[in-house]
């Protein structure tokens, strides 16, 4: 069962094909990693999934429904959470208020539940004791974790994380792997990641993107044994 699918999804910038005819499926409840060399079109692809970047062509289907025409905020309302590659928070507000803004859209009607959910999300990323501090004063790693908490608190059905571990310390990375593994099952996770330890340690399924096309898909074992993938990463011609 796939919760999210794309059919012939294409993005061209002028004459440049950032993504060409991508047919992609995101299996429900699993952690899928999207990997590929720099410039492969990963961020463009998830931008089109979330609606942040309009697609030139093709379809996005969420839970059996064609959402290609929906603006970004309506896709998020369907249960797609998104964290940015470059940290995007509300820097002048407190850590707590950042998460509260993310949570209120769904849970504003029930203040008690709202409060618990915010505390739970902050607790999961270990920022609870910093709740009253200003978000912009936090270290880069903590800001990344805050953005993850802002995604978590929405209780999303699909959680798209664009390079979440970039800038995190080793200890934080292993905590992050544990965290997203605990989410899988109920939440479907799409992870864009450069850190191979995270990819191999967390992902159930890997899709490799190269030059705007899907190069390979498979389990971590398949992918690490795939010669085409090795070639794309190491820059060899087909061995």
């Amino acid at each position, binding site marked *: 069962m796939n919760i999210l699918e794309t059919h012939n999804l294409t993005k061209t910038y002028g004459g440049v094909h950032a993504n060409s005819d991508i047919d992609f499926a995101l299996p429900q409840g699993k952690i899928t990693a999207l990997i590929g060399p720099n410039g492969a079109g990963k961020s463009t692809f998830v931008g089109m999934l*979330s609606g*942040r970047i309009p697609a030139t062509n093709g379809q996005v289907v969420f839970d059996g429904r064609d959402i290609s025409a929906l603006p*970004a*905020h*309506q896709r*998020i*309302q369907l249960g797609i959470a*998104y964290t*940015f590659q470059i940290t*995007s*928070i*509300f*820097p*002048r*507000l407190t850590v707590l*208020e950042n998460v*509260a*803004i*993310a949570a*209120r*859209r*769904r849970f*504003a009607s029930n203040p008690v539940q709202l409060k618990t959910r915010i505390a739970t999300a902050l607790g999961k990323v270990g920022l609870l004791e910093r709740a009253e501090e200003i978000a912009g004063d936090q270290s880069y790693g903590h800001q990344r974790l805050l953005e993850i908490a*802002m995604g978590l608190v*929405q209780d999303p059905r699909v959680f798209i994380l664009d390079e979440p571990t970039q800038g995190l310390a080793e200890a934080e990375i292993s905590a992050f792997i544990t965290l997203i593994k605990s989410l899988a099952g109920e939440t479907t996770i799409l992870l864009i990641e450069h850190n191979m330890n995270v990819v191999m340690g967390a992902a159930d399924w890997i899709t490799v993107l190269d030059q705007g096309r899907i190069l390979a898909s498979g389990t971590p074992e398949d992918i690490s044994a795939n010669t085409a993938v090795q070639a794309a990463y190491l820059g060899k011609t087909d061995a």
Partner: protein
Amino acid sequence: MTVARKSGLLHLSVLVALIGLFFMLPPYHSGNLARIMVLAIYAMGFNILFGYTGLLSLGHAMFFAAGMYGFGLAINLGGFPLLPAFLIGMLSAAGLAAITGFLALRTTGVAFMIVTLMFAQTAYLVILYFGAYTRGDEGFVIQTAKRSVMGIDLTTDSARYATALILFGLCFVALARLVQSPFGRTLVAIRENEERARMLGYDTGAHKLKAMILSGLISGVAGAAYAMLFGYVGATFATVQYSIFPLLWVLLGGAGTTIGPLLGVFFMFYLIDFSSSLTTAYMLIAGIVLVVLTMFAPQGLMGEMRKRVFTWLP
């Protein structure tokens, strides 16, 4: 004490202080204060859009004028009684804000400033163009006899003060509640990082339009109240100067604070009042004070207070 209670107490004490001041101040100053409260309503309307949503409009005079002319023309030409005329003034401003917002919100930043400025200039020229009805630059007076409601003559000092205070109080308390509501907090989120707010599932376009309409509506209340309490409707109030004033007041008092607009108007009013008693070059003194304030309190009076003392200030 919770933040909501602290803020409730603060807003209540401001209103109590304003009631008390009427009995303590000589008529000259209580008359000034009535005017300050009406202009503070205007500043609060502007503050919703600028201070809380982060959209700088340079055309708010058109909403103030829409309220003023909507009210004044409804009375003088339409023959409406006071209260329905007031409502017409409010609706004129809100309607104009809806149209302007619908078109101008396609732009952001400097372009938004220019587009709103252009709309306001058009509104000003429309007032002059229909001089046969609006009496153009000269403006018109609303007869004292027409400025009474339920047998109460609004032109007396005490009735004028009380009306200004009631209108101010209503807007003040309503806006203080609004900015602490989920809707208000979402406006702040849009001000701080619109793209992030959108990618949290908020329809930022709809929120901005609502903020614009509300801002125009409150500015219109101020315009209608001004005409009602001071009896004069004129094109001067639609000039660009009256679009700049609320920006100045709000910046001085503290953008994005509930009390800032009142404080900003109060400060500016008495700064000019005082400096003009010293010299004819009073704008020079006012200018220097403003420069100094901007240097040492860039977030305005209440903005600095929030930074240093009351971090919970709404």
